[in-house]
Every structure is written in structure tokens, then in C-alpha cells.
């Protein structure tokens, strides 16, 4: 790049500072949440806020033991994992078929699937509630898993299709010549080759399923609740148990934060997918 000069440095320094300032402003609420989760009720109410204090694990202990955290964490994990796996089992062949078909209706079918992704959960949850009532599936994990597929399958199809469009058909065709069915060819050849794409897509699908609130809130009672729906456990009349709320929010978001950061490369790529032709 350009050689270092004093005038350039003077011009650049404010830009650096502005950038770091933005960074601090945007990250502060998250870190303040974690900080607050280690405060006692008295410290939480202090004004001005205390920055240096003796941290307590009290909030976490209460959330985990009094509020049955592990049950809801297990529910969340089961719903998110099973839903993601099912979504991919269905979406991988569907995305491949839609990417490669030369059917006249290809565009319409693809847009139809895309459209389902835009359905507001709050608009259809009442229907799902009635369907679950009819099938006796109220307050079960299976109803959450099945209904959430309405959003996760289209999401996976949409993201995967972008990869499959550029995938050479010659590879599957040669496998078919050797006697494999197209489905087997996809399983044995396409899936391993687009594994990074599947990982990238799975981050978005998993986060979507993990963060679902509307379904889990309105078609469960107690047994099948997931972590995001535990927010009302910390409302006592009009009061909120602040420390517990911060601890619960920290715990609920921790798995997806770690998951996304570990796969940051794929996360970034997933965001630009479909917009850029590489």
C-alpha cells in the first residue's frame, strides 16, 4: 500500500478511533449482559452502576437448579438438532433437483418454496395450535420439530441451491453410468464435495431453530418449552428478576454464539451467498 507519512497517519488516526468506537458501542450491551449476570440484586440496582465487584454465581445456580434449566436446554437442543437434520435430509435432494431441473415451472416452484420462508410465525401459529390440538401434539417436542420445518426447509433449499447450480453434472452422470441411482450419486459424490456449503447452511438453519420463540411459546405448556420461551419465568408480577434474567440470557445464547464464532468463515460466506456469483 501507500508509504507511511505523517500527514497520512494524522488523517488515519481519527478513522481508526471512530471504527473502534463503533465496535465498543455495538459490543457493550452484550458484555454488559454477561457482567450483570454475575451481580447480586443489590449490585444490579446500584446507581451509578458498579464496575468492580465481587462476582457471584448465585444467579446461575438459581437458573440452573430452581428454574429447571437443563430440561429446557435439552428440549432446545433436541428441537434444533433433529429439526436441522430433518431439514437437510429433505432439502439436499430438493435443492439439487431444483438447481438442475430444466422444468418450465422451475422458477415458480423455487419462488413458492421461498415464499414459505416469508410466512410470519405469529400469523400461522394459531393454525398450528389447532392442528396440534387435533393430533394431540400440544406440548410435545415433535410438534415443534415438524412445524418449524416450514421455515428451515426453505431456508436450507434457498442457501444450498446457490452451490448446486454451479456443481458439474458430469460427476453424477458418470456415477449413474456405473449403475448408481441419482440419489446414491448425490449421497456419495455431491454431499462430500459440498460439505462446506452444508456446514455453512446448517449454521443458519440451526440458529433459526434454536431461536424460535413463537411456536415454542404458544403450542407448549410446560413440558416441551425451549430456552427462548423461559423469559416469562423471570417475571414475578410486574417485577423482573434481573440477575436471573441476565444469567438465563447468557446461557441461552452461549451455544449459538460459540457455534457461530467457531464457524465464522462459513457464517460470513453464508451471508453473501446468493448475492454474489463466484
Amino acid at each position: 500500500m501507500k508509504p507511511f507519512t505523517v500527514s497520512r497517519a494524522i488523517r488515519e488516526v481519527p478513522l481508526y478511533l471512530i471504527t473502534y468506537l463503533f465496535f465498543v458501542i455495538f459490543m457493550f450491551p452484550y458484555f454488559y449482559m454477561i457482567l450483570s449476570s454475575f451481580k447480586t440484586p443489590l449490585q444490579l440496582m446500584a446507581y451509578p452502576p458498579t464496575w468492580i465487584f465481587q462476582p457471584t454465581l448465585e444467579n446461575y445456580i438459581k437458573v440452573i437448579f430452581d428454574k429447571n434449566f437443563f430440561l429446557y436446554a435439552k428440549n432446545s437442543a433436541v428441537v434444533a438438532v433433529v429439526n436441522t437434520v430433518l431439514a437437510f435430509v429433505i432439502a439436499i435432494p430438493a435443492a439439487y433437483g431444483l438447481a438442475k431441473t430444466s422444468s418450465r415451472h422451475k422458477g415458480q416452484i423455487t419462488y413458492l418454496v421461498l415464499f414459505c420462508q416469508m410466512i410470519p410465525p405469529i400469523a400461522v401459529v394459531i393454525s398450528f395450535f389447532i392442528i396440534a390440538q387435533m393430533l394431540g401434539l400440544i406440548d410435545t417436542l415433535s410438534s415443534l420439530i415438524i412445524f418449524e420445518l416450514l421455515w428451515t426447509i426453505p431456508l436450507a433449499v434457498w442457501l444450498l441451491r446457490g452451490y448446486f447450480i454451479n456443481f458439474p453434472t458430469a460427476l453424477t452422470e458418470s456415477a449413474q453410468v456405473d449403475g448408481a441411482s441419482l440419489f446414491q450419486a448425490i449421497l456419495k459424490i455431491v454431499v462430500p464435495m459440498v460439505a462446506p456449503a452444508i456446514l455453512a447452511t446448517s449454521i443458519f438453519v440451526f440458529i433459526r431453530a434454536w431461536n424460535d420463540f413463537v411456536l415454542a411459546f404458544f403450542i407448549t405448556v410446560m413440558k416441551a418449552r425451549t430456552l427462548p420461551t423461559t423469559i416469562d419465568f423471570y417475571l414475578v408480577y410486574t417485577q423482573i428478576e434481573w440477575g436471573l434474567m441476565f444469567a438465563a440470557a447468557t446461557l441461552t445464547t452461549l451455544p449459538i454464539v460459540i457455534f457461530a464464532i467457531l464457524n465464522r468463515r462459513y457464517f460470513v460466506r453464508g451471508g453473501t451467498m446468493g448475492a454474489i456469483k463466484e
Partner: protein
Amino acid sequence: MNRVSGIENEYRKLYLPGVVIVLLLCLVPIALLLVMSFHRLSLGMPWLSAEFTGLTNWVWLFTNPNQALFKALGRTFLFSFGSVTFEFLFGLIIASLLYRNIWGANFIVTVFIIPTVLTPAMVGMVWRLYFTENSIIDYLFNLLLHLDINWMSLEFAMISVISVSVWQYTPFWVITLYAGMKLLPRSPFEAAIVDGASEWQRYRFIIIPGIFPIIRLLFILRIIQNFIGFDMIYSLTGGGPGTITEVLSIYIYRLNFFNKMVGPGASSSLFLLMIIIMISYFLFRVLPNEEKE
């Protein structure tokens, strides 16, 4: 000829099951909504108590004296476009700053993933605590700007809701726009430098057009997401104070689960669905894709 249609058949066998499952999951609830919107019914076992009432629900929805539906629609537009506008502005500014090889840019982009993936229901709840009187936001605004703002007042509640949305999704714009800028081919820059283009000119005529497809996609995506959004507003304000932050999704919730008016609730759900279809159709048309396939 035969071989081609054979392959075509195989592709159909691949996508048909998935398409059928998605359509079932989508059309059955919508059909139910349609039926419910013409009935008077209650929440528990509604098929036992349903009573056909024709267009009553629809008429009530559009003509009730409060005009709650249209007010909610207006707020939805305000929330959605207000949020996306600021997300875009901040996102573009920060991504452009990072693009200037700022030390630590990769670290910043990585950490910026965090707000974006947080559970919206939890985000709303945590910010509700932050916006409480004498809580951290009050303290910081007092300390740094000497401003005393009641964030949950009638005047500021919508601004608070939009701010939280901007806070959560600006980082997503940054990550995506920054990645898009990084992927731009180098050669136009070299040519521009040879031609003596200023930094601003390179920015204006190479970078912005280069990332335009991403900007377009993010705009459409985020506007629709905001129209759908429920969780964060529900846990942050619940539509209040009064109905000042009651967007369409909250209005639907209030009709269905609070007022137990499942019939009008179904009509308003279908109304939101139609609005979303129109908005997305409009956006895909109005924001043209320059590099059409």
C-alpha cells in the same frame, strides 16, 4: 430425447417430496386461517364451537372505530423501514472503515457475529432491563450526553424498539458488506489508480456498484424480516406503552391470545400475509438486479 426426459424425471423425484412437504406445512395452516376468518370461534377445540359468520370478521377488522389494523400497519412500516435505513447507513459506514485495512478488522468482524445470532426474545428482555429508569442506558446518556430520556415513554418507545433492532442487525450488514467488498476483483482498482482516480471516486464508482447486489438483497431480506418480526418487540414492550409499538404481528397476537378473538385474528393474519407478499413483490421489482441471470 428419451434420455433427457428420464433425467428430468429423476430430478423431479428429488425435489417433489421436499416441495410437497413444504407446501403442506404452508397451505394447510393458511387454508385453516381462511376458514377461521369466516367463522366465530374460540381458542380451545375451535372446530366444535365454530359458527359461520360470513364476512363479519373482515368487516370488523377494516371498519372498527379504533382503526387498530391500519395504525398497526403504519407502525410496521415505520419500524421496518426505520430500522433498515439505519442498519444500512451504519453498516455501510463501518464496513467501509474496516475495508481501509484497519488494524484488527478481522477480529472486529468475527466478534460482530455475536449480536446477530442472539435469540431475539432474550434480546428484547435484556434491553427492557437496560431501558428501565436509572438503568445502564439512562446512566450512560446522563454521563456522556447529559440527556435524560424516558425510553419507554409514548414519544420514545418506538425509537427504543427501532434502536434495538438496529443494534442487533447492523453487525450483520457490516459482516456481509465487508465480505462483499473483500471479494471484489482487484483489477478495476489498479486501473483506477493508474488513471488517477481519487479515493472517493474509487469508492463511489467501483466499491458501491460492486456491492450493490448485496445491498439490494440485504434490504429486501431485512425489510421482510422486520415485517415478520415478533419476538423482540413482544419481550421488549409487548406493544406498549398503550399501543404505541403495536406492529401488525403484535396486533395479531393481541387479537388471538389476549382478546381471544380468533376470527378477526385469522383475518388479520391473512392481511399481514398479503402485505408481505405485496411488499416482497414490490421490492423485487423496484430494486432491480443489475446482473440478471
